[in-house]
């Protein structure tokens, strides 16, 4: 028979109806929905036994104790450890997401170790001068550097200036802070917040920072006039003039003095802990105590001294090795550059090229937390000496180079075992006790074998000296306050650091969250008062240029009536000083 068009229609229609009674179409619908659940590209989290491991965060000198929740060996989340006497179970946002750092997309991937080593030894062969810049002094690694540099003919060990004291927050009752970000990543967060309930906090600061917002009293002091207030407290300035300079009513200033002297023990702090304001602690019996360091082997004592970058003669360094593997106080490049001789070899050990890597001839990839085994020097607010390790939680993701090995190799020194030697030295001294978190026990070092002590440290234990508070001899820092600087007209605005910067060394999640919540001022943004903005013809959200002693920066300007006139609020600490903002 011939198939007509109608037959065809009938066939198709029948087929369609027939298909409906088979499971096929229904199953297909269900399956597509299921497929939309395991959508391509959605990762499946690895399953497995959940283990708990302990370590210490080495992202800053707070060295908070960490409990890592691991699937097998892989940490999937970090939390604080309540039994750690200093950090008391608190972590900062940086620490909480630290286990993401090894996977940061901006990590260095090449390791030009051979080239760097060759270049360095070539530069040294002619009896060149070599220096190591260590951003975090006080580590065992720092000792290794100093030992190596002592062995080298002209070795210099450079490090940011460290305060020779520790701050005893717990015993303070009244705290006057000249812009010290006490409640924002200062010292050891857990320790600060625990002590916070016992002292009255008076924040003298031009803008309302996080700390000022939560202080018991915020003295909105005129920018740049902190020294005037300090001078009055030191009895070197009449009340009227202090009031006039600081823009704070006499009554409040007087009350401040009263509080400090009567509601003691008092404590006076400022942002960089060096300025003459710290000298006031002598006058008001501030609760500063001598800084104590964990014992080191006798054999280490013949080490290169810690010298200040400023003390190095210009154009004298042929080799400079910079260790920024652990974040520390950043010394601006303009302060370093003049010290370098012509064609000096600069080798930076960093996790990204965005730090000194921009200036170094070789940037070697350093292992970073939680890949690297390192110890953490005591925090500014830890009264007793302490020794704790940041034991690695994961294997290094990609090629890494060890800066200590690099330097010690040049001096023919083997410091591979330095941490163990240090631990043994501490054990030999026999003071203090070891706190272990898994069983939250504290065992006196005397009662431990050296082997177990070392083992305990590597399982995330923490050695702490029994708290001995040696009051500070107050040798350093004159108690005369420095003369009050007169502002120069070319730089009309006071640059005030209102935020600790988010910085590059953080989990991609952290930067995402801050970006999506506008919770922190981005490094690229400044905040102006409507008055200054208008004067400079800058609109809210408009582009601007910030001119400072450290150069010009293209930024976005925000206008906020909460900012006092004459102030530009930034999130880059090194810019503190005076500056000028012009429309881009």
């Amino acid at each position: 028979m011939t198939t007509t068009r109608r037959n065809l229609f009938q066939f198709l229609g029948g087929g369609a109806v027939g298909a409906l009674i088979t499971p096929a179409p229904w199953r297909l619908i269900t399956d597509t929905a299921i497929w939309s659940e395991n959508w391509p590209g959605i990762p499946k989290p690895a399953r497995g036994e959940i283990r708990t491991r302990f370590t210490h965060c080495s992202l800053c000198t707070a060295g908070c104790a960490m409990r890592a929740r691991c699937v097998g060996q892989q940490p999937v989340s970090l939390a604080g450890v309540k039994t750690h006497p200093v950090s008391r179970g608190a972590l900062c946002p940086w620490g909480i997401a630290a286990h993401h750092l090894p996977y940061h997309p901006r990590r260095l991937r090449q390791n030009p170790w051979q080239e760097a080593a060759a270049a360095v030894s070539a530069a040294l062969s002619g009896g060149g001068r070599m220096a190591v810049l260590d951003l975090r002094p006080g580590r065992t690694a720092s000792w290794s550097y100093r030992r190596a540099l002592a062995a080298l003919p002209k070795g210099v060990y450079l490090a940011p200036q460290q305060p020779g004291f520790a701050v005893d927050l717990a015993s303070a009752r009244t705290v006057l802070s000249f812009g010290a970000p006490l409640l924002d990543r200062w010292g050891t967060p857990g320790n600060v917040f625990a002590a916070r309930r016992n002292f009255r906090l008076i924040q003298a600061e031009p803008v309302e920072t996080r700390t000022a917002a939560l202080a018991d009293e915020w003295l909105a002091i005129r920018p740049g006039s902190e020294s005037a207030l300090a001078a009055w407290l030191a009895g070197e300035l009449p009340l009227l003039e202090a009031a006039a300079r600081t823009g704070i009513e006499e009554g409040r200033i007087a009350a401040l003095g009263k509080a400090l002297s009567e509601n003691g023990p008092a404590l006076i702090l400022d942002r960089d802990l060096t300025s003459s304001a710290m000298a006031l602690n002598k006058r008001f019996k501030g609760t500063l105590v001598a800084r104590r360091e964990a014992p080191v082997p006798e054999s280490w004592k013949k080490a290169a001294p810690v010298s200040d970058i400023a003390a190095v003669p210009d154009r004298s360094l042929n080799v400079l090795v910079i260790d920024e593997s652990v974040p520390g106080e950043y010394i601006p490049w303009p302060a370093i550059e003049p010290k370098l001789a012509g064609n000096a070899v600069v080798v930076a050990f960093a996790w990204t090229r965005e730090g000194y890597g921009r200036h170094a001839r070789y940037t070697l990839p350093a292992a970073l937390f939680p890949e690297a085994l390192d110890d953490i020097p005591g925090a500014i607010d830890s009264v007793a000496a302490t020794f704790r390790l940041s034991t690695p939680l994961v294997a290094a993701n990609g090629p890494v180079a060890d800066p200590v090995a690099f330097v010690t190799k040049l001096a023919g020194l083997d410091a591979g075992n330095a941490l163990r030697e240090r631990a043994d030295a501490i054990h030999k001294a026999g003071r203090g006790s070891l706190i272990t978190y898994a069983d939250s026990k504290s065992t006196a070092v005397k009662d431990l074998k050296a082997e177990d002590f070392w083992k305990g440290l590597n399982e995330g234990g923490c050695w702490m000296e029994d708290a001995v508070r040696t009051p500070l001899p107050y040798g350093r820092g004159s108690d005369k306050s420095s003369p009050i600087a007169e502002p120069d007209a070319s730089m009309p605005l006071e640059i005030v650091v209102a935020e600790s910067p988010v910085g590059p060394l953080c989990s991609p999640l952290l930067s995402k969250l801050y970006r999506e919540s506008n919770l922190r001022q981005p490094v690229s943004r400044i905040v102006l008062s409507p008055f200054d903005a208008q004067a400079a013809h800058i609109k809210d959200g408009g582009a601007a240029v910030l001119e400072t002693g450290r150069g010009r920066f293209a930024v976005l300007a925000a206008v906020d009536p909460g900012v006092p006139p004459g102030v530009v609020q930034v999130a880059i600490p090194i810019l503190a000083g005076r500056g000028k903002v012009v429309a881009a």
Partner: protein
Amino acid sequence: MKRYGMSIDLDRCNGCGACMVACAVENNIPATPENSNDRKGITWIRVYKIDNKEQFPDRRSAFVPVLCQQCGHETPCVHVCPQQAVDVDPATGIVGQMPERCLGCRYCMAACPYHARYFNWWDPKWPAGMEKALNPDVAPRMRGVVEKCNFCHGRWHAAKERAAIAGKREIDPADYVPACVEACPTGALRFGDLNDPAVEVARDAKTPESFRLLEKLGTEPKIYYRSEREWVREIANAPRPGKENVRG
């Protein structure tokens, strides 16, 4: 029957954002592309910086963590969901969101006065290798669905399982604390069963300084805020347009 809730002390919160980070880590929130912003990104708990709208030197600021307020009565999002992807657990009072049932109509987001619900505008993506660090107790979500805070249900499951292996039906309260509460370094966040008068949270909720956001809507939220500062307590009420707000 439990009624889990939270109390947030605004006089302690220093806006560090630890809660947001801990939440994102716990709940496998992906790192969104660079062009995401405060309106397209996902964060189950968001800390807002607020101020008293004064000028210097009278300006005062505070930080307000806002998560799903776990409305207990006429829960706005539950009623509107066309396909039962949102429900309130009678046993815990927790408002649950089922990404696998959600079709992404976003009606619930329009219904939520707290903007505590978030939509997956992008495919979830992690930097290479970072997916190794995902939390196995929480399933990553796919593009095109809504998600929100559920008081870290992964931890609730783990706590129940720990109880089960010991043959217990009731969990040990110490076993179940949401990530944000555990992470808060200032101790501003507290969590617990509001029905249990012995628990801190239940007592916090009763203090005169404590308040809830938009209480007058009658949705009985289970997140209690507290502050000594008068102007901060004002945020409980409806917005009052100030001149700086009035713009087109």
